[in-house]
């Protein structure tokens, strides 16, 4: 599947000839980005702008961290140049970006508000902008990594990362296949003034839960969804996992919710918090999140230390 994907992208290349004594030199090529837009990409890239944490992590993973000239304010910045420009996640400062003269902007579908393209002016200024919508499956994450590797000229490196990831997925799936009694999981990704958020199918987090051998109690729904308290109670999950690791005392606050004291997960102390960044960003670091979820659900089966 992935090979086919690369082959298709390669097929879309347009080779520009710069006639220098008959030698063929490629200076740019055309790809179809992850949103389906055709973009002309320069082959010699030295300055990159990344506008979402997932993409930044992939770019750093490909060994291109020192080429980043600007990242969004949620991106990790450890190990990056100290004078790197920090831009807004939405409504980025276009003038600043143009002044940085990047060769390419790796943008996220999350940067958009509605259908407006926040980087339209950059495109008009002749800067290549590729869009990567947020992945809705683990395969999607691998494809995104492959794509970023391709446009940034790191096909080999990307291939190594994705092959390694796939191997690890397979190993985890093999362990999951040996699990006889599967647990029902309620995975909470947000509590906004009492409005609780979880997810159904067509999300990579649902695949994470399934991969390690859990049953998402909302697998009959799809996408991100808010869920009612009494519905969670009536579904009586065996384990509760949340990735609100930025909220202090989140486990205690979930366990003390009124009515939650009848849920098996709370009775048996099976409420866990996992890292919010590694479980919500579609990058190679998802494997960290997968391991955390696996160890939370089945400490007797998984041991990654």
């Amino acid at each position, binding site marked *: 599947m992935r090979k086919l994907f690369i082959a298709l992208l390669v097929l879309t290349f347009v080779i520009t000839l710069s006639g220098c004594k008959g030698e063929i030199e490629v200076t740019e090529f055309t790809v179809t980005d992850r949103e389906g837009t055709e973009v002309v990409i320069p082959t010699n890239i030295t300055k990159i702008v990344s506008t979402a944490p997932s993409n930044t992590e992939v770019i750093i993973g490909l060994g291109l961290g020192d080429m980043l000239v600007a990242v969004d304010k949620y991106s990790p910045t450890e190990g990056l140049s100290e004078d790197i420009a920090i831009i807004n996640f939405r409504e980025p400062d276009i003038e600043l970006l143009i002044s940085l003269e990047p060769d390419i902007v790796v943008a996220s579908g999350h940067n958009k508000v509605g259908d407006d393209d926040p980087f339209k002016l950059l495109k008009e200024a002749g800067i290549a902008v590729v869009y990567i919508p947020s992945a809705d499956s683990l395969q999607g994450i691998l494809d995104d990594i492959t794509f970023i590797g391709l446009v940034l000229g790191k096909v080999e490196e990307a291939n190594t990362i994705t092959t390694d990831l796939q191997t690890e997925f397979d190993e985890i799936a093999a362990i999951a296949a040996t699990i006889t009694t599967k647990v029902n999981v309620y995975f909470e990704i947000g509590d906004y003034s*009492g*409005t609780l958020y979880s997810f159904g199918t067509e999300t990579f987090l649902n695949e994470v839960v399934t991969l390690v051998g859990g049953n998402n109690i909302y697998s009959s729904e799809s996408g991100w969804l808010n869920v*009612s*308290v009494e519905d969670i*109670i009536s579904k009586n999950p065996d384990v509760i996992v949340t990735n609100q690791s930025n909220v202090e005392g989140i486990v205690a606050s979930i366990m003390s919710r*009124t009515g939650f004291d*009848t849920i098996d997960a709370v009775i048996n102390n099976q409420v866990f918090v996992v890292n919010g960044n590694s479980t919500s960003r579609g990058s190679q670091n998802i494997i960290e999140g997968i391991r955390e979820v696996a160890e939370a659900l089945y400490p007797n089966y998984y041991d990654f230390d």
Partner: protein
Amino acid sequence: MQKLCIQIITTLIKSKYLLLLALLTIALILGTGIGSVYISPIKIFSILLHKVFNISLIDSVKNTDVAIIYHIRLPRVLIAALIGGSLAMSGAAIQSLLRNPLASPYTLGVSSGASLGVAIAISFHLTSPFLSNMFLPVVGFLSSLVTVILILYLARKIDRNYSTNTIILVGIVSSLFINGLLTLVIALSGDELKNIIFWQMGSLSLRGYDHLLGILPFVIIGSLGLLVLHKELDALAFGEESAKNIGVNTQKVKILVILFSATLTGSAIAISGIIGFVGLVSPHIVKRIYGQKHLTLLPISFLFGGIFLILTDLIARTIVSPSELPVGSITALIGAPFFAFIFFYKRGK
């Protein structure tokens, strides 16, 4: 003897009060019974007997049923009744006081004040270990009261008589100003934006007995306060001059009515977030059916608002189950056509 009984019952029905009490009972039963799982009235009854008199449960009742009925739905339905009632009753009082059919405590800055207070608390991560989950409600309540008192103070600076137009104008201008500040806080809040927006949309999710007990005293103080002033409100509804002529201290009454109404509305939205429409529309519907006298208008508005919010919250939490909709949007979506129906139906007659 039999004849007398029938007579009493028919008068009760004719007086339209029994109808409303019957509706309230039905709403309470529906509100506690229906949800992501249906629980029969017999089971509900058994759970209540078990909890209150420690009578053993009937066999078919599961532990999760007890949790859902006793800890989730019952407090939620009771809170909906109190909040809907408070919004409707204070709406009725303010509309009469300001002799303006579009007025409500929201006109006096109660909602914008509470929103600003809560938004500041959320975006600056203010918490209080002592108040724990009652912290935001307390902040909301206090900031709405402070806002109303500031608006009254401003109005007094402009016009010592507190004429209705002054109050409305000062209220609206201050609300707009506070909303400007609110937008500023939200724009700068970054990650907490969702929390603030969801709070504003109004929800009764995850509200328990601590919230119920938290607002109960304020609801009692506010509603008793307004009921005591029912004659003065009757007089004021005819106009300020005539009220003065029969010896009503209009200034004092205005301040008291506004403060009691703000107590009711402020405590209500402190718990639920902003729920519109109930306070605006309930008094109009009640007036059409039960007349203008405040001795009946105020308590009936309370009952009506309570029933209305129980039923709209029921719809909000069941229509897209297992998800929930913000109840504030449902009150308007259901309320507006319902209001139009009552209005035109009565007119057609």
